[in-house]
């Protein structure tokens, strides 16, 4: 069905006819709903939207979106999507991946995607476990976690997806969580506006194999103290009454309480997502409980030319300079002789 018709698109327009097959209670449902809710706000035609995923519970995502979709192979979605986007820049391409898909088998494509800054939106469902293969540890699993493949507990040090992205030169990093639909929708919409690779880590609960892993962050009673929602240009305040904040001591972030020890709001760090240097962004990304709140929101959003822009520029430039304008001219150019 053509979507050239006039009425604005709604969430329903983005819902495919496929039965959703995640476990009851899986965090993926909420993410799907948030994406379907965010889509109409992007002002795009749905035929121009493509969801490309790898393999994993999370990677089943494209089946449920009534857009173009490609459920590819494990870990390779960033590479595949790079080809799609570069060869057809009109498309709005979303990569859906899991912590195993993106950071284990797909690690190389992940870092090179960020390095190249291809204009894609990457939804990284981080449940700190391999869901689809029934519960092995992932590169984000916490040390000590007992899983099917680590009966004595995980001994690998985990990746911090955001820190790795900073190491690879990422231009955009946001973090959100499956329990907060409003924040998800908002971040999805804003991320899609970033030109370059927008990496969005979504803390996602796997009810079956790693249930409640983010409970500390999401618990109703404590969430105000355990989360900080960063917004560009706003002071880094959190707590139920925004009574707590972050300040910098040397290279360390510290939690302070307004009014205590003479701390005033003006002492609190103001979030600058646009700062090119990723040092402070990395510190924010890596804050963990119990000493610090977990940072949500758009942590980094800096400008840099996208790979597609540069491809386009080189093409334009070479078209301007080229003497040979067609294949026939090319094969007839240079040394030839007549028999």
């Amino acid at each position: 069905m053509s979507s050239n018709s006039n009425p604005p698109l709604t969430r329903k327009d983005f819902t495919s006819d496929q039965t959703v097959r995640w476990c009851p209670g899986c965090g993926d449902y909420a993410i799907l709903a948030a994406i379907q809710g965010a889509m109409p706000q992007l002002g795009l035609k749905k035929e121009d939207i493509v969801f490309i995923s790898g393999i994993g519970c999370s990677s089943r995502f494209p089946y449920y979106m009534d857009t173009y979709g490609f459920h590819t192979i494990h870990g390779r979605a960033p590479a595949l999507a790079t080809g799609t986007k570069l060869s057809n820049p009109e498309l709005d391409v979303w990569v859906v991946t899991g912590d195993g898909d993106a950071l284990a088998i797909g690690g190389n494509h992940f870092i090179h995607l960020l390095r190249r800054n291809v204009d894609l939106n990457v939804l990284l469902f981080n449940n700190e476990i391999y869901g689809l293969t029934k519960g092995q540890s992932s590169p984000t699993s916490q040390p000590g976690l007992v899983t099917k493949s680590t009966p004595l507990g995980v001994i690998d040090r985990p990746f911090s997806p955001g820190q790795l992205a900073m190491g690879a030169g990422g231009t955009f990093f946001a973090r959100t969580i499956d329990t907060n639909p409003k924040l998800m929708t908002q971040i999805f919409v804003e991320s899609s506006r970033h030109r370059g690779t927008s990496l969005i880590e979504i803390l996602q609960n796997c009810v079956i194999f790693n249930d409640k892993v983010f409970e500390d962050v999401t618990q109703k009673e404590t969430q105000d103290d355990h989360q900080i929602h960063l917004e560009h240009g706003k002071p880094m305040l959190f707590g139920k009454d925004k009574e707590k904040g972050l300040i910098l001591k040397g290279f360390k972030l510290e939690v302070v309480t307004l009014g205590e020890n003479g701390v005033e709001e003006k002492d609190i760090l103001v979030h600058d997502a646009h700062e090119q240097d990723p040092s402070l962004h990395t510190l924010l990304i890596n804050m963990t409980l119990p000493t610090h709140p977990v940072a949500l929101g758009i942590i980094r959003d800096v400008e840099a030319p996208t790979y597609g822009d540069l491809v386009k520029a080189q093409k334009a430039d070479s078209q301007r300079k080229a003497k040979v304008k067609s294949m026939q001219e090319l094969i007839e150019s240079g040394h030839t002789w007549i028999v």
Partner: protein
Amino acid sequence: MTPTQNKPSATLEKVVIRFAGDSGDGMQFTGSQFAFTSALVGNDLATFPDFPAEIRAPKGTTGGVSGFQIQIGTVEIYTPGDAADVLVAMNPAALKSNLKFVKPGANLIIDIDAFDKRGAKKAGYEGDPLENPKMEAYHIIQAPITSLTKKAVADSGLDTKSQMQCRNMFALGLVYWLFERSVDQTIKELNQKFGKKAPAVAQANTDALMAGYNFGLTVEALPSTYKVPPAKKASGTYRHISGNVATAWGLMAAREKIGNILFYGSYPITPASDILHELSKHKHLDVITLQAEDEIAAVCSAIGASYAGQIGVTASSGPGIALKGEAIGLAMMAELPLVILNVQRGGPSTGLPTKTEQSDLNLAIKGRNGESPIIVLSASTPSQCFEMAYRAVKLAVEHMTPVMLLTDGYLANGSEPWKIPDLGALPPIQQPLAVAKEGETFLPYLRDPEKLSRFMAVPGTPGLEHRIGGLEKQDQTGNVSYDPANHEFMVKIRAEKIARVANYVPEQAIFGPKEGELLVVGWGGTFGALRTAVKELRDEGHNVSLAQFNYLSPLPKNTAEVLGNFKHRLVCELNLGQFANYLREQFPQYTYEQYNKVQGLPFTIQEIKEEILKHV
């Protein structure tokens, strides 16, 4: 030296010349100059560069010798020749490492100035290389190339290093004289190359060239000159082309025909990299090249481009192709077009990266998990790479399937004259585009009733939104399906789709009579040697024909017939018998004899002839 009368010249049907020197001696340029000049006078020819395995070994050592072989003829030439009639050796190392490529009785032109003790020792000779009794088998022409070049360019104002870089032109001049060739084209070229930027260099090179020519004219030591009269070639405009450039251009021609974008996702590897290098020069002709982070990203990015409706192509050689298997399986399952170029090299593992071989046929046909048939093609000569690359795109796009094109290091780097085609006359390429129908649900796995290929629904097209993937899919809808009967149906229809490609490829041709005693069977890049050997033996009265296969999977429709019309079949290939085994499984009704060579080298005509004679 006093000028002497030239000896009379002998006329030859064909002759093989080999230039060999240090990597820095400019042998590749020298060789191509000789090739072009010969082409201009109408010879048929074929050339092959022989690069050192090391990037740049120490000067004067055998590790650093660079060679260039060319065969020119008044008859049709299909290979650069088994062994050289004339070897130019710029130093002892060049002699040492090239003598094995030279015929007994050949003329060896050596720079005697370089044959001092130091040079001999560097090359690993004990004692004077020329004193060796083995050398009596050759006619050695001791030319003082270095000293005479120095003299010729003494007034050029160039520094010593630049002066020395004119030595190759001296040698070329001498060879021009030997074959009664004009120096004009090369002089023109030197002026074009250096004229503006460095006129002194142009002049010095020209002077060296002339000095070499004149040395030939003057010196008694030289044998008679040779004449190789023009070949009878179809009239038209010709150019030289190497296999890798031809492959690149074939892809580009197909792209232009379709009018979309050629997306080349690749990771460098010898001997495939030159295709990337060539394509990356032509961004203005709607080529996008991505040097990916690895081979898997390369093939996946190409699949992503195909998915976007463009032409996705990836290339590699053995080890890199091995890495792409899983992703090729995805393209096969998703039924998307994809072209995979495999420029085969010596294997297994890292193997012999700079050498040639045909040992990836198994991998091409069977190297994927599950039942995953794809189209497999091969090219026979450097220039035919153009046609086969074009065909690869055409078949991939029209049949919605991956196509692997097998070339090899020998084709890739070899070159030959190519009659420039009229691209307008190339067969059209039709993308089977899906069309949205108002009110109807789009079925991405509906199939063309003849080809059995599905239709391409390009993202961006309203009304064709759909989802595909690597899980088994339901007939027509493409939805994920675990239904047992559907799985078998889909496995079989994918196999049948590829089998039916036989209806869309040319019938297998036979060189020689269509029935008889012995059919020599080859595939891909061994064509030159097999063709020449079979022709020569037929000329000598033997009952032998050749079937050289370009379409390997599926095999042409008439293959059984072609094979069945002969009493014996001798399958010759540069591996341990992969095609022979494949024929055994495809046509078990026949028996097959085998001739195999796995030395990183192409067949020689001689060894093929000897083998054939054992069977006729």
